[in-house]
């Protein structure tokens, strides 16, 4: 095997690091594929600079792999689907500051309201049984009203997650549209 060209080595190093950052477990296989593709092009007499230029920046190519592999993977079980959703959110959040802010704002709102909803139901039920929890301020609201507020908060939390999933789908769609023209960093 011949020595790897310094520019190829630098490109592959950045490419592999970005694949790992996106959580692609098969990053080593993908890197091996790409080295094979580079070798094929070299055999065809294509200059190394031209080969790497045709790939685009290593970060953009790694992201194209991530989008292709994460978007089309069947969700399988519910757990696997949730894991893939979170992985996709991480990928999208890494794409730009606006997306980062939206993901974390909606994620925080969703989580906050959902947990508050559960707590309101539990606290309302306990209060209804005549037990007053220490350090819990209920503003003298009737226990049944507290319990009734629980589902409302849960619905608000669920709505935030729903908007977040729609936003993730929209951004992923934008990326997928951008990917065929390739080579440009997106997000």
């Amino acid at each position, binding site marked *: 095997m011949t020595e790897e060209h310094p520019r190829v080595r630098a490109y592959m190093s950045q490419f592999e690091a970005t694949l790992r950052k996106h959580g692609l477990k098969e990053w080593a296989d993908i890197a091996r*594929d790409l080295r094979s593709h580079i070798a094929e092009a070299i055999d065809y007499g294509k200059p190394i600079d031209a080969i790497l230029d045709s790939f685009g920046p290593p970060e953009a190519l790694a992201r194209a792999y991530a989008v292709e592999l994460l978007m089309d993977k069947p969700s399988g079980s519910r757990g696997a689907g949730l894991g893939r959703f979170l992985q996709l959110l991480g990928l999208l959040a890494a794409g730009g500051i606006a997306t980062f802010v939206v993901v974390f704002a909606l994620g925080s709102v969703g989580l906050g309201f959902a947990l508050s909803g559960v707590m309101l139901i539990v606290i309302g039920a306990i209060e209804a049984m005549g037990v007053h929890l220490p350090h819990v301020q209920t503003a003298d609201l009737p226990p049944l009203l507290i319990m009734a507020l629980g589902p409302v908060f849960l619905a608000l939390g669920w709505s935030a997650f729903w908007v977040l999933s729609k936003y993730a789908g929209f951004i992923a769609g934008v990326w997928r549209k951008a990917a065929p023209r390739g080579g440009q960093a997106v997000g």
Partner: protein
Amino acid sequence: MPEHPTSDWTSQLRRGVLELCVLSLLRTRESYGYEIVTTLERFGPLAAGENTIYPLLRRLKTDRHLETFAVDSPTGPPRQYFRLTRIGRARLETLELEWTDMADAVARCLNEGVAS
């Protein structure tokens, strides 16, 4: 090699049919990534860059529509050849039928527009 100049609409359309075209290129013989990219460049609007085809090949492999085998090379790492699996051949037949239906429907729709 520069990509074929295309509009945004053509780019989206191409993305949808590339899977069918790549599977079709591998229908009768195995091939490797660079050869697939250069072959598609002969088909004008189907010319997609390496940064589109290589991730697509990887996904088709992950989905078990393609399998790979290595061939030793004296000048570098082993070449990776792609060939259709049984699942991939079934996928190709399905996509061909869907494409034929779609192309036929579009043609009829365009004719309808001309006639009215």
